[in-house]
């Protein structure tokens, strides 16, 4: 119960951060990605701020050891680079560049731009389900499914 309540509060804070930073606005994301046009560098600062704090949080979590509400830290440990990672990141980048939407912002703006966001999220869920249907063997079977970050 406490784990669920904390996840809700933390999700709320994540969404607020996306809204405050401008990262939840696809037009602003595209303006950041449009480096040869009227470039808006804001999102570089969003990333810098987020990475700096998450790096500090990670060091703190590692030093503390056991999380407050869970038996252990559940953090990806793989360090190898493989074709699945490269192909997945490239496909993701293509989709992100086409609409300016990635998973967090898409969920956060469901009530702000309902028609567009529901369409995108439905397609995104379909894409995730499609991935579950594809036999792992055909996709360079080096990774354990479900071990996602």
């Amino acid at each position, binding site marked *: 119960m406490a784990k669920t309540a904390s*996840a809700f509060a*933390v999700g709320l804070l994540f969404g607020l951060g996306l809204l405050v930073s401008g990262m939840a606005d696809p037009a602003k994301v595209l303006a950041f990605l*449009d480096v040869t046009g009227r470039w808006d560098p804001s999102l570089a600062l969003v990333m810098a701020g987020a990475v700096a704090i998450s790096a500090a949080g990670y060091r703190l979590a590692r030093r503390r050891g056991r999380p407050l509400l869970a038996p252990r830290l559940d953090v990806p440990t793989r360090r190898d680079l493989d074709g699945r990672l490269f192909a997945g990141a490239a496909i993701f980048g293509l989709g992100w560049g086409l609409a300016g939407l990635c998973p967090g912002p898409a969920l956060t703006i469901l009530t702000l731009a309902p028609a*567009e966001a529901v369409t995108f999220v439905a397609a995104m869920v379909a894409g*995730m389900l*499609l991935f579950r249907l594809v036999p792992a063997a055909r996709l360079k079977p080096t990774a354990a499914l479900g071990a996602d970050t």
Partner: protein
Amino acid sequence: MEGFTPVSAILGGAMIGGSASLLLILNGRIAGISGILGGILAPPSRETAWRAAFVAGLVLAPLAYAGLEGSLPPVTVEASFPLLILAGLLVGFGARLGSGCTSGHGVCGIGRGSPRSLAATGIFMTVAVLTVLVMRHLVGA
């Protein structure tokens, strides 16, 4: 440069990083949105409830924003509906195949110094920039 908003960008970024840190320190979990959403789509387990609660927090964030700020943030979706469907399919499939998205790789993974996340973020940023270049300046869509 146009519409540059450095203060709100750093503040919002710090909130995102703070949220990722809290999820790790409290629940011991990585704030990767595609992983969390993908986990909800898997058969129900003991992990389903917190994942659904996290997503509910994201979805209700505009309400909290309106309560604190007194107005709603600007959101402009320029993409057409067919393009949104294509983009959504690619984002969903690609994030699962590549084991993460902007949050899991870009924020949490880079914060941990993960070589996989550094590589993935470099690739998806480069491909996204090239996609916008082609769409806006070559195709003119």
